[in-house]
């Protein structure tokens, strides 16, 4: 019997890349042979199905499972492009109150017996949907972008995760633009780490191949032949989750023009 790990992917601010990273990370973990199920808990705003390209195969959803209209297995859509990748969709016409944190714990305890990883795509914010996604969690990944509002909201979530004794949370910094960091026009990873005092598990660059893969419904990590930076970054996160220590792609340095000028003048 397996004892799968539940990983919650959440954020304070919306639109920072939770669903995108859940889809790509799930696919990356399945590609290295793990049994993975991704659960969309954004009830009423179902998205994970289209990002993963599984929207045409939905029959039952998470609320159907919880309200007993189907068995858990029936709501698990198997991805045909890779072995051992599954997705459980959110209900589109219900709201967050149709699920409780206890329901999520029960569903995940069942899934742990069969799966290596259960990835939960949480809705943004600090309300019921977040509580649902947090309740069964063994590891919490907070997605943020390198901008003031997103980092501020991440700080709030870090505090709530600690208060719920689910911490320490780890950070996924998404949509970093190394050129902007280099010219001093973006918060650097060092800035964010210093301010939030939290571990970074992944740094994912801004990369248009992410949007292209969402357009097609093909997670980057399933698109053989393409190796954009964002794909490597996500694969590195998967390896770190597996316990490997993988150095970061070097996007982190803030080498501003000023320090170069100083260098020329010997300062």
């Amino acid at each position, binding site marked *: 019997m397996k004892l799968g790990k539940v990983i919650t992917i959440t954020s304070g601010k919306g639109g920072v890349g939770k669903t995108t990273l859940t889809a790509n990370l799930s696919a990356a973990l399945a590609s290295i042979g793990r049994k993975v199920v991704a659960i969309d808990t954004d009830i009423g705003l179902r998205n994970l199905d289209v990002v993963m390209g599984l929207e045409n195969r939905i029959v039952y959803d998470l609320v159907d499972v919880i309200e007993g209209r189907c068995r858990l297995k029936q709501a698990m859509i198997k991805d045909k492009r890779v072995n051992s990748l599954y997705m459980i969709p959110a209900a589109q016409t219900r709201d967050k109150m149709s699920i409780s944190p206890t329901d999520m714990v029960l569903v995940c305890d069942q899934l742990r017996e069969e799966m290596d990883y259960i990835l939960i795509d949480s809705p943004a914010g600090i309300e019921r949907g977040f509580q649902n996604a947090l309740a069964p969690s063994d590891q919490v990944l907070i997605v943020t972008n390198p901008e003031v509002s997103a980092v501020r909201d991440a700080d709030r979530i870090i505090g709530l995760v600690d208060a719920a004794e689910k911490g320490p949370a780890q950070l996924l910094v998404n949509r970093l633009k190394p050129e902007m960091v280099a010219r001093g026009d973006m918060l650097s990873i060092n800035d964010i780490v210093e*301010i939030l005092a939290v571990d970074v598990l992944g740094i994912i660059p801004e990369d248009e191949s992410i949007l292209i893969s969402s357009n097609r419904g093909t997670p980057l990590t399933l698109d053989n032949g393409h190796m954009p930076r964002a794909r490597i970054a996500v694969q590195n996160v998967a390896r770190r989750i597996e316990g490997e220590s993988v150095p970061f792609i070097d996007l982190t340095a803030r080498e501003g023009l000023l320090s170069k000028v100083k260098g020329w003048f010997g300062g």
Partner: protein
Amino acid sequence: MGWITKLFGDKKNSGSVAKSRLQMVLSHDRTDITPGMMAAIKDDIISVLAQHLSIEADQVEVNLDQSGTESRLVAHIPLPSTRRR
């Protein structure tokens, strides 16, 4: 100095502006002390001190200081220059 700042512009990079604004807003968030409360605290400090000293109210500064995850209130209260008697 003047011509150098004119030539290169004296604007800070927006990355470091973002960092200091973030530190400021988080020290308020984390301590639950709003900018409005800070203003009230400052006024109260001034009125207490004014009972004992003559201070210049507009020179007083009270700030939230953040280092790592630790916050402190820092008051800066210059005294009027003392004359020899």
